């Protein structure tokens, strides 16, 4: 094994066998990579659904007219349409079919993250209750749309899988934490492979809800900027097929470390010193066997709210100092909430494979109170290991380390 990966324990690592991402910056990996290369944002000010204010959102186009596969029609909702669109990209389906052939349908798990699943369908159904009885429209399918498990159920049936499955719903850390669930399931011998990822889509609950907390910016978000004033919400879906890492080869990407922690501080505000975030980053580094100086790039949670960016900066600089290149990609595609962890995992994988650290978008003047090395333009450099942060409501923190195998 080569020097660049000698510190990584392959026993605990997961190999990213295949992956794909769809968001406002593009459908599939090629479009996503191009947008990162061009530092292009998919956030736009627009009218959406019945929203009574113009919002800056990262919308995936075409979902209103997308048809689910006939045999999966009961799952029809924006969230599962987005899931299907993402699954159809980058040869991901074929990769899954290949592992099913290799291991059998009971040995492939499905662990997905979402925060609001298909709740938009219940939001619409509540606008069409029977005036006399209060009943919801007869065609409303709570189980297959609104319930949090819907997306994992959809993906499991999409591939005819028969293995373990669940949805993790820990707000904005959801689809980072699924890597841990898959890693433990594989290590326990229950599975040979798993589909991990996340799907979250625009809905009124999050748009009005974050607005009520005064956390939605009236402009496209600008993480780490002196004038940052809130998030931009986006649609997003990302799927990764993971296996044990023993057979990883040159240029493969491994998830080499995961760290999880709780803030134990407040339901919707991070620990002011980034203490929980620090614990998660340290645990991820420890599992990967790496030192902070080994990390080539940090994909920040970087939501663009005042408190979140401030706490994360304190946490990052306490561990990494002020030199490690960092950025948030929320300025590109918005905050995709429960899908953010998986999308940003894939952004780290693209950055490692293509040897560049993506510069942030939307940010003009870095807040002088923040001290990490926030990139405003792409940095071409050899990339070996990247760390990604995801933090959610309820003080749920998760950090992931990704490493590139170089032969």
């Amino acid at each position, binding site marked *: 094994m080569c020097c660049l990966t000698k510190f990584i324990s392959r026993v605990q690592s997961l190999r990213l066998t295949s992956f794909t991402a769809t968001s406002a910056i593009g459908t599939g990996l090629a479009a996503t990579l191009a947008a990162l290369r061009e530092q292009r944002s998919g956030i736009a000010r627009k009218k959406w659904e019945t929203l009574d204010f113009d919002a800056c959102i990262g919308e995936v186009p075409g979902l209103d007219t997308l048809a689910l596969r006939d045999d999966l029609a009961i799952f029809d909702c924006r969230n599962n349409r987005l899931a299907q669109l993402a699954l159809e990209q980058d040869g991901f389906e074929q990769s899954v079919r290949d592992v099913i052939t290799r291991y059998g349908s009971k040995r492939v798990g499905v662990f997905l993250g979402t*925060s609001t699943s298909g709740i938009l369908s219940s939001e619409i159904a*509540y606008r069409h209750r029977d005036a006399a009885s209060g009943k919801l429209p007869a065609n409303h399918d709570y189980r297959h749309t609104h319930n949090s498990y819907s997306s994992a159920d959809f993906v499991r049936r999409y591939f005819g899988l028969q293995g373990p499955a669940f949805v993790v*719903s820990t707000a904005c850390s959801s689809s980072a934490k699924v890597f841990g669930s898959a890693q433990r399931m594989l290590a326990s011998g*229950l599975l040979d492979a798993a589909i991990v990822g996340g799907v979250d889509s625009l809905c009124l609950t999050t748009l009005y809800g974050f607005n009520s907390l005064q956390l939605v910016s009236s402009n496209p978000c600008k993480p780490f900027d002196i004038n940052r004033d809130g998030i931009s919400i986006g649609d997003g879906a990302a799927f990764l097929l993971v296996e044990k890492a023993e057979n990883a080869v040159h240029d493969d990407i491994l998830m080499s470390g995961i760290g999880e922690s709780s803030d134990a501080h407040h339901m919707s505000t991070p620990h002011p010193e980034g203490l929980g975030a620090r614990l998660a980053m340290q645990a991820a580094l420890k599992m990967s066997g790496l030192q902070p100086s080994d990390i080539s790039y940090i994909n920040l949670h970087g939501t663009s709210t005042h408190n979140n960016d401030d706490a994360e900066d304190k946490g990052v600089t306490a561990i990494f100092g002020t030199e490690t290149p960092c950025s948030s990609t929320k300025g590109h595609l918005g905050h995709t909430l429960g899908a953010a962890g998986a999308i940003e995992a894939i952004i780290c994988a693209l950055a490692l494979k293509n040897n560049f650290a993506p510069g942030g978008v939307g940010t003009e003047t870095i807040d002088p109170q923040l001290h990490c090395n926030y990139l405003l333009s792409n940095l071409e450099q050899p990339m070996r290991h990247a760390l990604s942060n995801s933090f959610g409501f309820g003080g749920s923190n998760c950090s992931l380390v990704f490493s590139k195998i170089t032969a």
Partner: protein
Amino acid sequence: MSALQIYVDGISLFGPGLSGWEQSREVLAGDAALLLAPPQLPPVECLPPAERRRVGMLIKLSMAIGFEAVRSAGADPAHLATVFSSTEADCDNCHNILETLASPDRAVSPTRFHNSVHNAPSGYWSIATACMEPSTSLCAYDATFSAGLLEATTQSLNSSKPTLLLAYDATFPEPLFELRPIPYPLGVALVLNPVKTASARAQLSLSLVTSDASKMPDAELEMLRLNIPAARSLPLMQLLAKGSNGTVVIDYLEPLNLSIEVQCAV
């Protein structure tokens, strides 16, 4: 696959006519009758007053089962990783937000919004117990108990540390009740330990099987088992209540179920 082995150090159950483990144990062992009525829950403890005012049924229930299980294990909750598993977030809160969004004035309350996340019970628990350990929050529709037990067991075995599993469900008001008719709130909690200690009450050996799920002999307990995802655990809880050795099969995801061999005298 070889079976996953884990010890049970602490147990709790709150549900209709099942007010804590001592009473539930008598009902499940057949020594007392089940009187179906909304669960009697202890007051929420350890939360600052501002937080305590904001909590609904789901958080009261998860706190009640969590503290009872931790106490019965003699464990320190500040050092326990947790797995929260439920089929839905706070149902009353969800209904209220949906009604607000369907009204002309869409002023969602900020407190209702942050309480709407599926991991709100985990967030309140970590604040109440000052616990910074890993915590996850799962949903697998009706398979939520087995999904949580597998996650908590693999978490515990991989970290070599005890883990607290909390599986609980609350009830929707109409109109969603018609689509998801969970009749009563019910929750179970187990402190799982990869190591045998003086606190161990039973050893569980878990494996995935394709045989049918065990049923409850009592009609009302079987009604609870079939209609509340967390109550899918009842055949396991009955063995633990009786202190009997045996094997039960718990519902999971078609075509897999979870076989649990229970050894009570450990």
